[in-house]
C-alpha cells in the first residue's frame, strides 16, 4: 500500500538519508531505528506528507485520499485538545474520518486502555490526564480509526509495562488482520516475536 523509492533528504545542508527505498504491503511491519538525530521523525514526516522537499518518490497505493486509511501518532504529541474530555476528543477526530460511532463503542475502547469510569471519560478535561493516560487515549483513537496503515513514531512513549504489552498485542492483531505498520521505536521488546523488517538510519561507520 506504500512504496518509497530513492528517497534522499538533507535538512539544513546536513544529509539525513540517501536513496532510501522500501515497500509496505499488506501484513508488513517495518521498524525504523537509528540514533538520536538520525532522521527517524523526519522520515515519518516525509512519508505522511507533513513536510516536503525530498527527492525520490513516496507512492500511496489505495482508494482515494491516503489520509482516510492512514493513521499517525507523533513522538512527542498526541493531537488532543486539553480543555475537552476524552470522549469529546475521540468524537471530533473520528467524525472527521466519517466515523460516527455510538457512545458505548467509545466508552469500551477507552475502558480497554484502562481509561474507565464516567468521570475519566466524560467529565475530566484531559489537561488533568497524566502523560501515560494521554498516550493511551491516543492509542484508543488509533484503534477506533481502524486504518489499514499505521505510521507510529515512538508509540510507547510514557506507557507502563502493561500498556506496552497491550499495544504489542494490538499491533500483532492489526498485522494479522491484513493491516500494515511503520513503527519508529528503539525499544527492542516491542518487536520480539513479530515478523518485521528493520530500516536503520544514520551514517555508516558513525
Amino acid at each position, binding site marked *: 500500500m506504500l512504496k518509497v523509492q530513492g528517497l534522499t533528504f538533507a535538512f*539544513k*545542508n*546536513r544529509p539525513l538519508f540517501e536513496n532510501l527505498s522500501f515497500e509496505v504491503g499488506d501484513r508488513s511491519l517495518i521498524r525504523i531505528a537509528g540514533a538520536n538525530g538520525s532522521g527517524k521523525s523526519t522520515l515519518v514526516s516525509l512519508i505522511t506528507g507533513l513536510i*516536503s*522537499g525530498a527527492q525520490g518518490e513516496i507512492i500511496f497505493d489505495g482508494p482515494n485520499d491516503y489520509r482516510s486509511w492512514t493513521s499517525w501518532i507523533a513522538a512527542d504529541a498526541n493531537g488532543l485538545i486539553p480543555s475537552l474530555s476524552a470522549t469529546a476528543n475521540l468524537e471530533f477526530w473520528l467524525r472527521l474520518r466519517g466515523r460516527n460511532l455510538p457512545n458505548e463503542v467509545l466508552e469500551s475502547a477507552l475502558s480497554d486502555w484502562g481509561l474507565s469510569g464516567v468521570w475519566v471519560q466524560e467529565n475530566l478535561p484531559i489537561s488533568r490526564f497524566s502523560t501515560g493516560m494521554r498516550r493511551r487515549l491516543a492509542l484508543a483513537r488509533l484503534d477506533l480509526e481502524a486504518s489499514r496503515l499505521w505510521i507510529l513514531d515512538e508509540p510507547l512513549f510514557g506507557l507502563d509495562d502493561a500498556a506496552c504489552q497491550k499495544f504489542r498485542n494490538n499491533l500483532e492483531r492489526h498485522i494479522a488482520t491484513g493491516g500494515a505498520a511503520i513503527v519508529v521505536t528503539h525499544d527492542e521488546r516491542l518487536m520480539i516475536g513479530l515478523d518485521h523488517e528493520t530500516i536503520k538510519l544514520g551514517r555508516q561507520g558513525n
Partner: protein
Amino acid sequence: MFDKPRLSLVATIIAMIVQWLLAWFWVPVDDAQGDVYRIIYLHVPAAFAAFTSAFVLAVASILALRSPNSSKLDLSKAATEVGLVFTILTLATGSIWGKPTWGTWWTWDARLTTTFLLALMYGGWLLLHNAIPEGPSRVRSCSILGLMIAVDVPIIYKSVTWWRTLHQPQTILRSGGSTMDGDMLALLLSGIAIMVIVCLSMIFVRRQNIRLQESLEEKSLRGVV
C-alpha cells in the same frame, strides 16, 4: 568588478545628480511657493519609487507562492527594505515641504496617510520575516503578507482619498497640479523615471547581497558540520 545591476545603479545615480542640479539651478522658481517647492523633485519621485517597490513585492510574492518549497524570499525582502527606505524618504520630504507651505509638519492628507501606512506595512513585513524561522512556511507567510500589502495599497489610497475630500475641502495646496509649466513638468517626469530605475537597481543589488550572505552562511555551516 562592476556587474550589470551595479553599473546601471552608478549610471542612474549620476543621472539623478544631474537632475538635482537642474532642479536646483535651472528650473524657474514657483510663483506661489518660492524656492521651497524644489523639494518636489525629490518628494514625488521618492513616492513613486516607494510604490514601485510594492509592485515588485507583489510580483515576487506571487512567484514565490507558486512554488513555496523551492523559492526564496530574497527578492521580496530586497523590495521591502528598499521600499521602506523610499517611504521614509517620502514622508520626511513631505513633512519638510509641509512645514513652510501648510504651516505644519504633518497633515492627514490622503497621500501622506497612505504613505505612512505603507511604511508601517513594510515594517510589519520585515518583522514577520524576522520572527519566522527559515523554511517553506516563512516563504508562504511572507508572500501572502506581501500580496496583501500590495492589494491593500490602492484600497487604502482610494478610501483615504475619498475620506479626505469629504472632510477637508481644498484648503491644502495640492502638490504638482496641472498649473506646472512645461520645463517643470518635464524635469519632474524625468526625475520620476530616474528614481524608479534607481529603486529597481537598488532592489536587485540588495537581492544579490542577500543571496551572497545566504550562500556564505550555508558554506560556513557546511564547513562546521
